[in-house]
């Protein structure tokens, strides 16, 4: 490990702090930029989904990973974003505006939700958000004049001016570009006063409050931001799937986003991206596993649920910092080889303490 010499405070708040990292990111950017040349459509479309899921995952990460507010209702924001986009597109609103409005709409809903949940913590909050998601799903089903109820809405492809996003590579660039933009906004937020206030609330609400952080206000802000990001992802999702119904946004979608942030690595932006890759790749991985062991597809159902469940349990038991945490350990191990000690990453109690006494 080397400790860089710093000459100004500016260096600590730079986007990318080390030159070495810069090179790697540049290479990654290049690889992503050139992906349509060497990847087939199938893989590109998976990458598009990774982009969508990573944006939604960043929304969840902000809320769960950085602010410690467990949400089991992220699917509701996804749904509001998707429906806003679909309805606005039908009404002829241009994509640039409808995408923003989809985010704003989901964000506003988040802010309104926080009015009733601002005083809640821990499991109460988790269950309140779960309830919220059920209510949103029901409203979407019942408000038939607007949403066409259970029959769903067909969503057309994105059109900007005369340009239609009709090929896989176009959509890929769009979703990846938006992901990069969202990542940049997140980094900015996290290196600012608001971002610090959020992580402060996660670690100790009482002392955050005593330092002047208005808990209710920041909970509203984080729910709004998280909702907005997830809403934008929902809008993209609507275009990607091209057909949305309320029952695509059930608790399973919320759980999936929660798994994404946990498996990816709580409290890390890398984690959200890793988690999205994981969620999109997992089904293929399971098929590989199935074929490798020659398991009949009759047992696919059990296999899916089993792998999913076991991964959740095992990650929580053995790698609570997720894929990103594991990656950091491997990196450190290589960096300081042969001086690695098992206790280097002694397990700490994470983010929250007993919620009965909060």
């Amino acid at each position, binding site marked *: 490990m080397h400790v860089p010499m710093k000459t100004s405070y500016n260096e600590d708040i730079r986007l990318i702090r080390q030159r070495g990292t810069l090179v790697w990111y540049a290479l990654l950017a290049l690889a992503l930029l050139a992906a349509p040349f060497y990847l087939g*459509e199938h893989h590109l479309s998976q990458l598009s989904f990774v982009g969508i899921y990573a944006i939604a995952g960043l929304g969840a990460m902000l809320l769960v990973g950085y602010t410690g507010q467990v949400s089991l209702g992220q699917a509701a924001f996804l749904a509001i974003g998707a429906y806003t986009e679909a309805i606005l597109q039908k009404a002829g609103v241009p994509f640039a505006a409808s995408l923003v409005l989809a985010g704003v709409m989901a964000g506003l809903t988040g802010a309104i939700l926080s009015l009733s949940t601002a005083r809640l913590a821990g499991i109460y909050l988790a269950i309140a958000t779960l309830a919220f998601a059920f209510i949103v799903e029901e409203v979407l089903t019942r408000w038939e004049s607007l949403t066409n109820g259970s029959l769903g809405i067909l969503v057309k492809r994105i059109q900007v001016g005369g340009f239609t996003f009709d*090929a896989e590579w176009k959509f890929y660039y769009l979703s990846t570009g938006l992901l990069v933009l969202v990542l940049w906004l997140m980094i900015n937020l996290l290196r600012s006063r608001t971002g610090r206030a959020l992580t402060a609330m996660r670690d100790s609400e009482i002392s955050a409050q005593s330092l002047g952080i208005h808990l209710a206000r920041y909970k509203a802000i984080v729910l709004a931001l998280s909702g907005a990001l997830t809403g934008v992802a929902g809008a993209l999702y609507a275009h990607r799937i091209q057909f949305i119904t309320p029952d695509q946004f059930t608790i399973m979608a919320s759980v999936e986003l929660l798994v994404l942030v946990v498996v990816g690595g709580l409290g890390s932006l890398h984690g959200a991206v890793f988690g999205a890759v994981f969620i999109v790749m997992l089904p293929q991985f399971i098929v590989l596993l199935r074929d490798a062991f020659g398991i009949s597809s009759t047992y696919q159902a059990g296999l899916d649920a089993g792998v999913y469940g076991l991964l959740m349990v095992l990650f929580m038991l053995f790698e609570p910092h997720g894929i990103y945490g594991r990656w950091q350990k491997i990196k450190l191990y290589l960096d300081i080889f042969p001086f690695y000690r098992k206790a280097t990453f002694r397990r700490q109690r994470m983010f929250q303490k007993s919620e009965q006494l909060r």
Partner: protein
Amino acid sequence: MTFASRLKMVALGALLAFSPGFGAKADVQGVSDDEIVIGTLLDLSGPINFWGIPVKNGMELAVDDINAAGGINGRKLRLVVEDMAYDPKKAVLAAQKLLTSDKIFAMVGSMGTVTSAATMPMVLERGLPHLFPITPAEMFAIPYEKLKFAFFSPYYDDVRTSLKYLIAEKGFSRIGVMYQDDEFGANVLQAVKDQLAETGLEPVSVTSYKRGATDFSSQIARLKADNADLVVLGTVVRETVGAMATAKNLGWHPAFLISQAGYAPVTAELGKDAVEGLYAGAMTPIPYPDTASPEVLAWIDSYKAKFGDAPNVQGVVGYIIIQTAAMGMQNAGRDLTPDTLAAGLEQIKDYRNIFGTAPLSFSDGDHLGSRQTFLAQVQNGRWVALTGFMHY
């Protein structure tokens, strides 16, 4: 100049040189000299996999039978099955794989309305046929498009047909509805409303439940309070039994009618006394071994031999879908393209299969196989046909 920036230049050059997304195309994707590749998306691991797994078996049996009989115009048929767990996102990804990596010639018998609705545009955009999705929703044939074909009588037609018959023959006048609050239930509700409107009636009571609900007491109580004499259920299996048992427990015994969705032996087995007298519209009779024709018996035996399990109506569905699609390919001749396949399918007129499915016809301008159903009733624990095929 750094390595990174040089690499960038190379990439930019490549960007100018090619236009991405346009691979070289064979003449007809998925059709080679000796093989036709078709694909399907089934729910093998999701909430309706009790459909997906037997359908897959039926389909594989059909493919084996066809190939054993020499294939289609000298080509063997190969079926690629992908699981989508009844999840539109997975369906889109799996469809992408079938279309671009397996290079299928046609999508045949994909399952579920939402999932098929999400993937059909991808198939059609590539100029490939989308055949017989396993869902009685009209959108897979209407509005008419050259390459989309549907097999099943829509729920809408099925319910209207049964309802019309029951009102005319049994004299029901106070019709109530209980439907699942999804696209399927909405179709049933619409059918009841439209059929009643013909005679200037309205449903006396309309109530719904959320998919997966297990308690129907307030819904049934409301139907009872509104004094319905025939209750149309937009339900599948468990909800049908649950609703009828609840009514029985309230000491209330109206007549009940369901759509094809609940027409399965398991409904009668689970419900026992509670579902006696239940009416259902149906398109293919359930193959009970003791009353089956010799051809069907032979089929049941070959199914058992292959999968070690007695077939159910889902297995039949998987089988006849592939069979009918293969018929169209046979009619298309050696020069198999999406266009000739469409023309081949359009040659099918009043086709009746060994299972007694409603006669199928396709024509230029009408790609919905059949709108006909017959009315069946649970009597002594099994389904009995009350009528021949009819349409409202």
